[in-house]
């Protein structure tokens, strides 16, 4: 198993390198860098000398290859460079916001699992009945309604009926657990709803597949109580594919909370990413993209390991 993990970790390197090369060079191909945005934001005239001086200070005057190698060398010592906009280290900027996003993603995942498992199971067991259609409507809503719109409606209701406004800054869970909970629960529920729709549809189709299997018929024929058949024989197998989706969706949520963070005014990595894009802050965009990619490939590996652990039919190769 150690060999398998080592091999998988090695296989990540080309993918991550590809991500690094792609983002780095594509960002620099097109004219218009951070210096222009930074110095000319007020619409004022700036002398070409000042622009050049700033470019030199940020290292943008070197050739692309030199810039890239510098950046790569930094990455191997876990130094992602400084933000071209604020000047602070990229790693520190990300670290200070990571917890918010991580907490929201984790809570959303938990909420999604708690909604999706019953919904998916019920709609598969009562396939074609009113119950199934109700679940279908709920899941289609989750897939189609834009999460920022649902977020705004939730905020509207909270403001109107509970006179509650989301706090401006992040409340740490260790200082004020209840304050933290009330702050994070709404965005997590909005995201969790969309996530649960994806998951419930998957569980429904996977459970329907499993219920057609021979061993289910055998179990029923030999008189195993219906409840045991569903819980022990069917659901246990049907939930296997869900593990993959939960793991990968969680990884995507770290980068995909962009919109929700904007609506609920959470200062997470998504918001940082939007600012970086607006400011043409190359180093910050690169750092964040690399982080998203690393989380995604790691999640992929972890999902495969969990899968192999819970499903004895799967062996490491």
């Amino acid at each position: 198993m150690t060999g398998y993990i080592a091999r998988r970790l090695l296989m990540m390197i080309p993918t991550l390198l590809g991500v690094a090369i792609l983002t780095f060079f594509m960002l620099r191909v097109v004219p218009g860098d951070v210096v222009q945005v930074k110095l000319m934001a007020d619409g004022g005239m700036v002398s070409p000398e000042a622009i050049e001086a700033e470019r030199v200070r940020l290292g943008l005057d070197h050739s692309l290859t030199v810039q890239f190698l510098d950046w790569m060398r930094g990455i191997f010592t876990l130094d992602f460079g400084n933000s071209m906009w604020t000047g602070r280290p990229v790693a520190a900027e990300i670290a200070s916001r990571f917890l918010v996003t991580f907490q929201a993603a984790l809570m959303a995942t938990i909420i999604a699992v708690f909604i999706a498992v019953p919904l998916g199971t019920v709609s598969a067991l009562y396939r074609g009945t009113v119950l199934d259609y109700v679940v279908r409507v709920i899941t289609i809503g989750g897939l189609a309604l834009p999460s920022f719109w649902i977020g705004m409606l939730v905020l509207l209701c909270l403001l109107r009926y509970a006179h509650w406004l989301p706090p401006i800054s992040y409340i740490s869970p260790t200082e004020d657990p209840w304050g933290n909970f009330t702050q994070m629960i709404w965005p997590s529920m909005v995201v969790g709803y969309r996530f649960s729709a994806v998951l419930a549809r998957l569980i429904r189709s996977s459970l329907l597949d499993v219920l057609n299997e021979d061993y289910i018929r055998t179990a029923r024929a030999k008189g195993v109580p219906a409840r045991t058949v569903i819980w022990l024989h069917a659901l246990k197998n049907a939930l296997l594919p869900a593990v993959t989706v939960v793991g990968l969706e969680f990884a995507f949520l770290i980068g995909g909370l962009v919109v929700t963070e904007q609506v609920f005014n959470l200062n997470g990595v998504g918001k940082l990413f939007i600012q970086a894009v607006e400011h043409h802050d190359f180093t910050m965009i690169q750092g964040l993209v690399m982080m998203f990619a690393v989380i995604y490939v790691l999640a992929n590996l972890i999902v495969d390991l969990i899968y192999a652990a819970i499903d004895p039919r799967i062996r490491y190769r």
Partner: protein
Amino acid sequence: MTDTANLQPRRLNRPTFGALGRFAYQQPVGAASFVVIVVMLLAGILAPWVSPYDALAVDYGALLSPPSLDHLAGTDAFGRDVFSRIIHGARTAMIIGLSSAFLGCTGGAILGAASAFFGGRVDAAIQRFVDILLAFPLVVLALVVVAILGRNPVFGIDISLIFAIAIPIVPQVSRVIRAAALTVQAMPYIDAARTAGYSNSRIILRHMAPNLVTPYLIMLTAYIAQAILLEATLSFLGLGVAEPTPAWGLMLSGNAQDFFLTAPWLVIFPGIAISLAVIAFNLFGDALRDYLDPRLKQ
């Protein structure tokens, strides 16, 4: 020999109006969503003629007025008629949604089919590239493309935005089309065509492509919904369609957020428009899948 009358197909107890009628009969939900799609397309095409007001006209006499018979969906902070802006927004959503879904799905289909057909090194190279693109969350990839391309408006439509929405679609479609193409390729008639000495392009175009049209069409309708949603998201974030062009996502951002407590219609109606469009294309895509390829039915 038995009586030939028995071999005649049994008369079916259902109306026959050709393919369209059969679709409507088998997939009533799909037919209903198709009607919604047609209405939205017409609204987009005929926007300047059917909308009650000019979408850009500012009326300082009617700032933030609630929905009424004059302004069906109220007015925004500049006194612009929200209903007219929603109708014009359909044009933006349809142009960007259709073109970027078409671009992304076609690009993905070509990549996927090429990957499957040539196999070996070409396949490996394309699949590694697809892996790289798949490591980005959807919104992040779109935003990276926005950051790279900036804004390039042509006739009021931002070409960069179309690419920003199309590119994240490419890897996902290419995976599905590759799998479908591999199945087709294993068919004996492809071997037969090769044995007959047909050229690669002839095999691809005449023998493989027709069999990939069904998955392609199904993906296309599904991704139109995704593209509309992504356009709304990017516009909402201020990185998509720019003011004063009416776009649904854009209508939810900016001053809508400042006034939405006193003027909830600013938030409610554009959101309904987005949801309706996305639901319609999603359901139509599902119905099309069940109709064209019953094997895939859940």
